């Protein structure tokens, strides 16, 4: 900081060069090292990858490794299994959550206050992961995608209801009234007036919930482990199965491939994703 200020600006003088250097160093050390380890190891052969280190592979065979895990790790099945569970669960929580939030945001009574408190308690309380399995067995849904979708919906409805109820209260009643005067019933008012206005908050909720469901392995292990392929479940198998033990080049090749879908979405929509998440968090 004591370096002489080259210009007249009153701003911190040395930060002009120090800050970019510090930024680059931080990125290289905190992100560059782990990510280089992944990429370089994924490009090695088995012997070289046995002990993962930072030296580049003597001969890159990244795509051969990709091809191998693509088949062995059942990537295609895992990808579609993840989609099969995530898409209905997210659409379900958005629609059911918005419907409930509209009523909870507009009407008030002691009973509804209790229902609201219970409905948002799932934000904080952990799901009863063991007895969910028991219940699903009793319902005949154990190991099925429908059971998994139901479990995720039960977990994330609270988040949607919390976000959307707060948002509904900021929508002027007059907008609904106008439609009602024209003879629209509640369903029409909700679909035509409320739902479109909820889009910004629903976008934020979608991002967060997709992130959680797409990457979830804990609840998936209990509910559909061994019965359905999802990308994280297959990674768990790839990494813990004897077949791949210590085969770091294959584990890391799998990690690169499985991260690509979300990474691509993020690259193309990063501005929206980042502003969506921050607007939801700090208000």
């Amino acid at each position, binding site marked *: 900081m004591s370096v002489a200020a080259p210009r007249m600006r009153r701003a911190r003088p040395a930060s002009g060069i120090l800050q970019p250097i510090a930024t680059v160093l*931080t990125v290289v050390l905190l992100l560059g090292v782990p990510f280089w380890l992944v990429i370089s190891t994924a490009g090695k052969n088995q012997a070289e990858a046995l002990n993962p*280190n930072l030296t580049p592979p003597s001969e890159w065979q990244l795509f051969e490794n990709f091809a191998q895990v693509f088949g062995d790790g059942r990537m295609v099945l895992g990808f579609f299994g993840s989609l099969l569970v995530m898409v209905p669960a997210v659409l379900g929580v958005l629609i059911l959550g918005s*419907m409930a939030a509209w009523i909870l945001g507009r009407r008030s009574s002691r009973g509804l206050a209790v229902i609201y408190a219970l409905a948002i308690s799932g934000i904080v309380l*952990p799901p*009863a992961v063991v007895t969910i399995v028991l*219940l699903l067995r009793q319902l005949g849904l154990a190991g099925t995608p429908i059971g998994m979708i139901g479990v995720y919906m039960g977990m994330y409805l609270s988040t949607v209801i919390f976000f959307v109820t707060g948002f509904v209260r900021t929508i002027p009643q007059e907008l609904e009234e106008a439609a009602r005067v024209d003879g629209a019933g509640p369903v029409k008012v909700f679909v035509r007036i409320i739902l479109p206005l909820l889009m910004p908050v629903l976008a934020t909720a979608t991002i967060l919930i997709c992130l959680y469901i797409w990457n979830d392995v804990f609840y998936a292990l209990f509910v559909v482990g061994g019965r359905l392929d999802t990308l994280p479940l297959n*990674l768990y198998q790839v990494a813990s199965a004897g077949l791949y033990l210590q085969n770091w080049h294959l584990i890391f090749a799998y990690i690169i491939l499985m991260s690509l879908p979300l990474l691509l979405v993020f690259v193309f929509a990063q501005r929206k994703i980042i502003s969506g998440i921050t607007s939801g968090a*700090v208000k």
Partner: protein
Amino acid sequence: MSSRPRGRRQDHPLWFLLPALAVLVIFFFVPTIFNFVYAFTDWSSFKSGIGFVGFDNFVSLFTSGTLVNALRVTLVYAVLVAVFQNVFGIALALLLEKDTRLNRAARVAFFVPVIMSALAVGYIFQALLKPEGALNEILGFVTGTEVSIAWLGDTTWTIVVVAIVHSWKWMGLSMLIYLAGLKTISADVLEAGRLDGASWWQTFRHIRMPLLAPAITFNVATALLGSMNGFDIVQATTEGGPGGATELLNIFIFRTFGQGLFAQATTMSLVLFLMVTILAFPVIRFLRKREDVL
């Protein structure tokens, strides 16, 4: 608000609540109630029937020390993650505060771990932290001597290392929230402080930190809750070891469930539920307040 008291009820019919409530009851509340029932049974994969055994599960888990250990580990882990994640998050936010092109790119880069699978992050660091792994390689290069620290093999310090890995994964999210918080501080306040001759540190400590309070509360609360429910990163790095030093409640639940000891797993699940419930009251009160602001 009450200009049209009549008709307001059918304008917002209660049946709109029903689908969401049905899903919540079936998939959230009923299993939670089951938790309070099956924790007191001998439900396991080795028997066909299920009988009540009273507090036997609690007693055996308590006397074997597993219960206390898992509770302690989970709490320590949660506190460590809350501290590290926020220190990293604030540090990154301050470093990348200015809207330069380089900073914007770095912010995006630090968000990549957030969107990655936590399990994948765990495996990456398992490789990085091996005794013959890359971190020791770098340390050896810097110090000029052979370094072979078993980062994941120490019964005392490994929990700290794993908490740092957890914080590494989520620090990009904390950073974003702190950046948004820093943006809300008006330039006039900072200018006034500077005219009064406040140093960078004084400005930070006495002006910016207090104004960041909402962001800090949010970040600490989410970090605590997220890490109390933690599983993936610990499973992928240590699987609860060495010697149970990083055995979170969820790791124990997963392991005993896999062994077919369903009642014991349920008991621990109930313990987790009770622990979070007790600790969550301040969090819920905070969320309520936030929602009033919204």
